[in-house]
């Protein structure tokens, strides 16, 4: 199944996952060689503090063309939560 971002680009769930993991990896210095998966916890595994997850908002808007609610981002716990958040924000084609 594919979905569309706000600019009409088509994405698979796997494609969204890969793009999100690239963004998370870029924001996690020192984790370049560590595996990051959907199960990776933002706070416990990557050490992000309360406000650090907000750094994903801008690159996700630029790359995946999806606008995320800041308060929703603050409540994310895992990379998988972020993938689901982006995927759910995309449009299901008619």
């Amino acid at each position, binding site marked *: 199944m594919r979905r569309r971002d706000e600019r009409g680009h088509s994405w698979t769930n796997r494609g969204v996952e890969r793009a999100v993991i690239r963004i998370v990896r870029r924001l996690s210095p020192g984790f370049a060689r560590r595996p990051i998966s959907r199960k990776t916890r933002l706070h416990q595994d990557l050490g*992000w*503090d*309360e*406000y650090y997850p*907000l*750094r994903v908002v801008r690159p996700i808007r630029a790359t995946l063309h999806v606008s995320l*609610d*800041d308060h929703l981002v603050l409540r994310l716990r895992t990379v998988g939560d972020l993938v689901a958040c982006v995927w759910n924000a995309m449009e299901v084609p008619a």
Partner: protein
Amino acid sequence: MTRVLGPFVLAALAATAARAQQADSEPRWELLVGHSYSSARALMQPATLTLEKVQGSPLYSVLDVGALVRGSVTARSWIETGLRARTGSARPSGQQVFGAMARVFGELDPVLVAVGGEYQANGGFDVHALDATAELTPLGGLPGLGTWVSPALHLRWRPWIGTAVGDGVRPYVRLSADWVQGRLEAGIEETAWLVAGSGRSFVKGDISFQLVGGLSVTASGESGRSPPTWERTGRIGLGLGFRLAP
């Protein structure tokens, strides 16, 4: 008049926020309980109930607790409103602090901005302070700022710079840092104010060992002068900590 109206102004702020939230079809409020609400770091500290023994005095209790309710206002902003208390039998009323605040955050990557109001009073409610505050922090970009320094070194820090306007203008800076290793956590937070041309500072720290759930054994300490009384205080204690966060 300002002193009397302080809590009501904050309650009105919170009520306004609640009405704004009700317009959202998806309720997204959350409750967080921690040591204080003064910063991200403070929120992650546990609420503590400590027993202290001071030479020549009986065993005393010290309670530090704060609670926050947080919800979204717009897509790019959210509000926090909460209460806190620094009390217990070990603190004379002059050193006890009760407070309430409402604060709206806006993310303007690469910084986070917070604007709010805070009411503070001492234990006897004979010293009051009602302040408007504005502060900001960079979201990240330097080693250890908001995220661990490295996978091997679980140390992170966050700076805040701000101004409180109430009975005068008080610029301040706050620096917090925390370190995590397994069930062991340690944190320190220092705030420095410029008050009427002179500097004042307050530092607090804790070391916690997580037992189960949000419960921990916590050693905590503090030193310096903090609002609203600016009395010099210092203590070290050992007790139980509790933290509730989603």
